[in-house]
């Protein structure tokens, strides 16, 4: 009995240890005098100082965050609409639409990168923020649709039919019944999209212009002279901010719950 009770936390703990092990190394190396991080040569703030003065890298990082944030939000919204359309309605080319979403997930990055660039050039779109945003939204879409659709499938259809019989319109049905149920799926989709967008290299390097550099391109481009530990600093800062905000949110939610009871 006691073993079975302590097993779940142990398992969760093990997974988290594995997930955080590589990141811990990066955090440690962000304070390491050694540039290459194979040996500990002593503590330093110099990489933090260097990053502080590296405008190009800071800009790229901020660009990445804003693209990821906007793309994740819009992709979640658009994906929600698509999932609803695919779940609720019958329309011409429905099968084609769902097939296209699969194709999008299967297409290797390089194929998407080149074809996106060709389409943007045909549309006469200036390469930069907007072209990046559109492509990031597009490659995130299937992940959102699949996640949202899976949850819609778990929905009790009798509920919807009952609501309809009671005279609920399509919009209120979506707003009052479907959306509340979808909240976890929407959260998951946003996180998925944000993560995907933050890490894309190949597609981004083709569809962005000189005025709008993002972090992954800069990092991959550093291989020529050796990836600078400033990237570890960025990882550390991002981690620290996330952990602090997670704690704050947890505290807030806890207090809210206490107030309610």
């Amino acid at each position: 009995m006691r073993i079975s009770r302590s097993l779940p936390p142990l398992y969760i703990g093990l997974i988290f240890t594995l997930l955080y092990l590589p990141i811990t190394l990066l955090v440690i190396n962000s304070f390491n005098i050694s540039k290459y991080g194979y040996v500990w040569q002593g503590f330093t703030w110099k990489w933090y100082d260097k990053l502080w003065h590296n405008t190009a890298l800071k800009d790229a990082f901020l660009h990445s965050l804003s693209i990821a944030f906007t793309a994740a939000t819009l992709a979640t919204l658009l994906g929600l609409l698509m999932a609803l359309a695919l779940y609720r309605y019958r329309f011409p080319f429905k099968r084609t639409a769902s097939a296209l979403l699969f194709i999008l997930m299967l297409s290797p990055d390089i194929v998407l990168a080149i074809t996106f660039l060709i389409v943007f050039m045909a549309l006469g779109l200036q390469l930069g923020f907007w072209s990046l945003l559109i492509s990031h939204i597009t490659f995130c879409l299937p992940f959102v649709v699949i996640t949202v659709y899976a949850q819609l499938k778990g929905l009790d259809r009798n509920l919807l039919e009952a609501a309809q019989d009671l005279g609920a319109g399509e919009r209120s049905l979506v707003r009052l019944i479907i959306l509340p149920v979808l909240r976890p799926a929407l959260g998951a989709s946003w996180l998925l999209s944000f993560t995907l967008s933050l890490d894309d290299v190949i597609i981004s390097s083709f569809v962005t212009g000189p005025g709008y550099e993002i972090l992954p391109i800069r990092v991959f481009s550093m291989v020529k002279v050796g990836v600078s530990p400033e990237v570890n600093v960025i990882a550390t800062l991002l981690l620290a901010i996330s952990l602090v905000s997670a704690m704050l949110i947890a505290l807030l939610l806890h207090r809210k719950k206490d107030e309610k009871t």
Partner: protein
Amino acid sequence: MKKRNLLLASLLTALSTAALAEGKVVVYNWSEYIPDGVLKQFTEETGIKVEYSTYESNEVMYAKLQLQKGKGYDIIVPSTYYIAKMSQEGLLKPIDRKQLTHFKNLNNSLLNKPYDPGNQYSVPYLWGSTGIAYNADVIPEGSITRWADLWDPKWKGQLLLTDDVREVFHMALKINGHSANSSDPKEIGQAYEKLKTLMPNVLVFNSDAPREPYMAGDVNLGMIWNGEAVMAQQEMPNIRYVYPEEGTIFWVDSFAIPSGSENTAEAHKFIDFMLRPEIAKQCSQEVGYATPNRAGMKLLDEKTRNNKTIFPDSSVFETGEFQSSVGDALKLYNDYWEKLKTGH
């Protein structure tokens, strides 16, 4: 009233000259491949803004420029035979030598190479070589001198090769006594047969950061770029860099101007600025690769200048080869490469 007009007029002229001076140059290059300070100094002196954009491989840069028909960038930094490819396809603008007052600083032995005869399209920026690295803690000093030494069966499952068709074939072609730029199907076929016998020795292909496996202790012998060897030596002084007897691989990263460049004058100013001896010296020092700028090299400290890993003896130039375009034979190279990797 008149006075006011005059004032306005002078203000306007002031504004317009400022606008004129405020040109820009869009540089498409590896990240951190030109030190930040150098870019800032250029803007301070000339008023020309630098927009610095980065790519992760020559291939991506080339494909993107080709798709955009050479537009969007003013300066690119392709490696060796990409100059040949791109100029043949009309993607590069000829460089106007008259606008380059510091061109004479360049080392003649790095000019006029087969990839760009007469340097019509390219101005060398930094250069280096690909040779052999070994860890002298594990492998006896001086026991590795030739490419052929990598074929010794005792290295089974231990070598590092760069993940680059042309560089890997270079070894085999040179051992067989052929040019590394061969486009003769028979010679390439022979090289393939030779490489097939090397495959059991290979542990890893790496063209991202070949120094890493050496520094991590996972690999003690294999190919490496000289700049990476220098970086590795900073923490592992016992990493040795060897120019193989059969002939090393030379490469040059050069400035070039894409055919669709809209700021050609600024681009020339930029290249000329980069050719100044003190700037060339600064770049070489901070980036860690050799400068082709003879005047700049003289400014380097003695230790760097005499570092054979960075600046080889002239005898190395006699056997070594610069990569050049192999034309349609590239397909043959690649077919063999696929076969090597899939074991067919």
